[in-house]
């Protein structure tokens, strides 16, 4: 009780770290998690950390999850901090999502889309019944699953790149025209966000936002604090080939690929004062890894923020300052955590002021 200064913190800190390590290992018989196990068996956790960390580094994302013992905020924090140790060398040329090598592609707007709908690896239609046989899954059974899947020879393997669903709507004239001369994108990692912000700053901030935070604000819009009424035109998950110019020839070379999720929503149309024909509103969401709920939430907020930037915001989810300053997991968790630090000195000053003010009023 009271405000007792902690002395001998050095020992306590060391012991606390060791205790955490003990918690992680906890028994004499358990095996350490391998980075590969984390990347694959904890696929969605891994994806979440990649996206919230803002750095596509699958190996270090696994290590971050291992070290943080599965705390998503902490794990993303490891990646963010690591970025500060690496020089910024360049930026890539503009990459387009239509080049993604897909493993999943669906549309809620149209039954039949050019190229077809492919569910890919999804948990959407799982009945959340426990598979009790996994309680003691043997390594043999575990390995058999992948083996038997791979044994099937691709008789009719589909191509993996497809056009965007929105393109057909755009050709029909149902969508607003694309930006004519887009600005240079805003780099949120180097420049402080000062309002009003550009849409590119909002997209970059949301792409690395904390999933729960961005979902909660988007949900407020879905429930009635907003009126976006989105329809998912296309949701796609796949591997984007990343291209960089060859240093000698300048020709674009594929230097690697990233797993990412992209979502495009069509929203209720707006009556634009200076536009003769009304067109659908549009929202876009994307992030590293396989994070569908996050991409959908982002697409909805993109649309909501466009509205808030154009007219004045009617709801929190349409207010760029409210949304963008409160969705970063590293910032918010850091500030919440800092209240755990000792404030003995400032509190002593507070006590002094209150007592002296009380004396004055007596």
């Amino acid at each position: 009780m009271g405000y007792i200064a902690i002395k001998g913190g050095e020992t306590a800190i060391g012991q606390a770290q060791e205790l955490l390590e003990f918690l992680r290992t906890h028994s004499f018989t358990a095996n350490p998690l391998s980075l590969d196990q984390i990347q694959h068996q904890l696929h969605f956790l891994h994806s979440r950390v990649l996206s919230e960390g803002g750095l596509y580094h699958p190996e270090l994302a696994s290590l971050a999850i291992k070290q943080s013992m599965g705390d998503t905020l902490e794990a993303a924090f490891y990646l963010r901090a690591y970025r500060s140790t690496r020089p910024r060398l360049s930026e890539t040329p503009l990459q387009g999502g239509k080049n993604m090598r897909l493993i999943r592609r669906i549309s809620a707007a149209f039954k039949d889309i050019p190229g077809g709908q492919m569910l890919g690896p999804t948990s959407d239609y799982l009945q959340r019944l426990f598979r009790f046989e996994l309680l003691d899954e043997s390594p043999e059974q575990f390995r058999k699953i992948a083996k038997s899947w791979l044994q099937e020879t691709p008789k009719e393997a589909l191509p993996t790149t497809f056009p965007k669903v929105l393109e057909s709507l755009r050709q029909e004239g149902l969508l607003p025209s694309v930006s004519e001369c887009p600005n240079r994108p805003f780099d949120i990692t180097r420049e402080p966000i000062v309002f009003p912000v550009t849409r590119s700053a909002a997209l970059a901030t949301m792409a690395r936002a904390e999933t729960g935070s961005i979902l909660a604000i988007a949900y407020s819009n879905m429930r009635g604090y907003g009126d976006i009424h989105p329809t998912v035109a296309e949701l796609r998950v796949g591997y984007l080939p990343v291209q960089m110019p060859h240093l000698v020839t300048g020709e674009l070379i594929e230097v690697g690929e990233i797993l990412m999720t992209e979502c495009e929503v069509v929203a209720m149309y707006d009556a634009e004062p200076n536009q003769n024909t009304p067109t659908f509103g549009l929202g876009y969401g994307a992030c590293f890894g396989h994070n569908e709920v996050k991409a959908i939430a982002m697409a909805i907020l993109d649309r909501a923020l466009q509205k808030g930037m154009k007219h004045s915001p009617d709801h929190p989810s349409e207010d760029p300052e409210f949304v963008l300053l409160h969705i970063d997991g590293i910032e918010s968790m850091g500030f919440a955590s800092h209240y755990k630090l000792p404030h003995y000195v400032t509190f002593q000053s507070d006590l002094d002021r209150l007592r002296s003010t009380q004396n004055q009023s007596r």
Partner: protein
Amino acid sequence: MIQSLTDEAIQKNGASVGVLNTASSETNRYNYQFGFLDEYAKKEVRRTLLKAVAIPGYQVPYASREMPIARGFGTGGLQITLSLIGSNEILKVIDQGSDDSVNAVNIRKFVATTCPGVTLTRQTAEATLIQSRHRIPEKRLKFGQILVLQVPYPDPLVVVEPSEEKRKIMHGDGDYARLWVKLYEDMVKFKEITISHRYPTRINGFYVIDPSPIPRFDVPKLHQAEALCLFGAGREKKIYAVPPYTDAEPLSFSDIPFRVEDFTDEQGNRRTCQRCGSMTSFLNELIDSKGAKVYQCSDSNYCDSQLGDQK
């Protein structure tokens, strides 16, 4: 395999040569370099520091990087420390005046890990660089020493003006009228200035700074100090400075002077540290095991050295 980087090669393609890290690239590809931050980040902080010193009290914006300790734990101070530090440094880290406070221990450990060769010390007098949260050491800092203070809220005008754009204009004009009004209203309401810590202080007769959450007790130590004082706000992305031999005056009225924390007891005597007996230091109020209120120096190294002197 690689034989040499010829001068000619540098000449042709100098554009990619900025800073060469002396750390060997032969080692594990995931090693952290000396000082953790990449060299371009350090350069930016260094340029910012020079402007901060050249324009005393002005909050210079910079692209604060994410640090491996949480925002609010001293990321601004740490970025300054890492941009300053060399392998011959003698570093002291304190939090609440104490070298053993958990946050101080943590930051010291971090620097020791990422800056091999740096000497760590608890002795205020022998440190070349001191990073601190919430206190300026009791022992007067000397010429040549650098004090780095961690800052949560850098702008003293934020209590009267929420828009940063407008605050920047007010600072540029040296217009602190609304801050004076706020102090005056306080006085009328409470007959006391209610600001307990982070006391607004005018530097070199122009800019007013938030001196970080040091107690009022520490504010006069900034005035005409021999040491260089640097302030880092990581979350708010600002750096500012009070150079040595510079005026630092807490805002006050002639009839209600600036007052430091009062440590006199009911009988009107100055309370003393129950440990070293100091009658001049800033004291922490503690509750002992019997529930009685006792007082002890907040600056642990000062308290220890007072005890040592008595022996």
